[in-house]
């Protein structure tokens, strides 16, 4: 499998909220990076995990599959997922795959935080 071309940094703007800043390509090769970021984000007390896609360069269908797996893991811990920074193209993909029914989509970080 190819090396992942992605970085995922985790921030905690509030005690109960974590933001994962995704930079690069979301494909099957970044599963380990994504799950490691989730482990950092899902500290005790985290109720909302926000995915920042502002610097997303590319995502394929395997990437969508990984987001489904992430969603299941988060829901199991009673955590919600939100996202912002998606281009119109990827917003349409979220709508097509009906991921938008489970991951709330926002224009920017402030609106994602406000909706928490």
């Amino acid at each position, binding site marked *: 499998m190819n090396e992942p071309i992605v970085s995922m940094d985790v921030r905690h703007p509030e005690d109960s909220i974590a933001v994962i800043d995704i930079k690069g390509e979301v494909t099957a090769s970044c599963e380990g990076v994504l799950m490691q970021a989730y482990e950092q984000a899902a500290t005790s007390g985290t109720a909302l995990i926000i995915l920042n896609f502002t610097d997303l360069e590319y995502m*394929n269908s395997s990437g969508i*599959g990984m987001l*489904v797996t992430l969603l299941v893991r988060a829901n199991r811990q009673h955590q919600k997922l939100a996202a912002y920074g998606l*281009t119109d*193209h*990827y917003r349409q993909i979220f*709508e*097509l795959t009906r991921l938008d*029914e489970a991951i709330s989509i926002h224009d920017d970080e402030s609106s994602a935080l406000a909706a928490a």
Partner: protein
Amino acid sequence: MTDKELPRNAASWATNVGPLEVSPEHAAAGYNISGRRVTGPQQGFGRLWQRTYTTNLGSAITPKDLVTDWKLHFGDFWPKGATFHTAITGVTPGVVAPIGINAAPGMELATGILVLYADDESFTFMTPEGHMFAGMITFAAEAVAGTTEASIKILIRPNDPLYELGWPVMRRREDTFWSATLVNLAAKHGMPDAEVTEETVCVDRKRLWSNWRNVRHNAGVRSGLHIVTKPFRPKAKA
């Protein structure tokens, strides 16, 4: 949307958000999927499974050439007992393809798929409401140590309580079906006795009871009704 915003694989994605539309040539086979929506794993009912079937095809063909052929002749690699109705162009993003599955003697279960994504090394289907499974299935090829490895990766939940009850049987049928598909694919490309490995992971043991009403779309039930009521329907004009 500007070109700058479009990723380099934008053309690999389907764009048809909304109810599925079956092409006129396949309308008769697509009676159970026309007007339906696709269902992701989060819209299904039963436990969430990730299943992966893999086989190695040696070095006679590159991953790109393999996927090109797989997309063009997708249904030809299926074992007997199922029909994949698609256009001569093969598997391309946005195509809605009806599927017929011989569920029992005289009983063909009619369902289908949407081609969600297709690039040089992989393609992904999503299933519609009423299909046995809610989720995605990805067909891919990649280079591994100078050889080409083909895989089928399935992320699915049984779509409704009836299908969840039938999961033990469907699971075995899936094993037989997809293993045979990979064996047929390998045989065409010079590997007549390819070995298929299978890995299954239960990603989520929780059933999504809020989706139990999916049963109203159950393609097995609807196909049965379609067959039983056939004598009472007006015949289509030639």
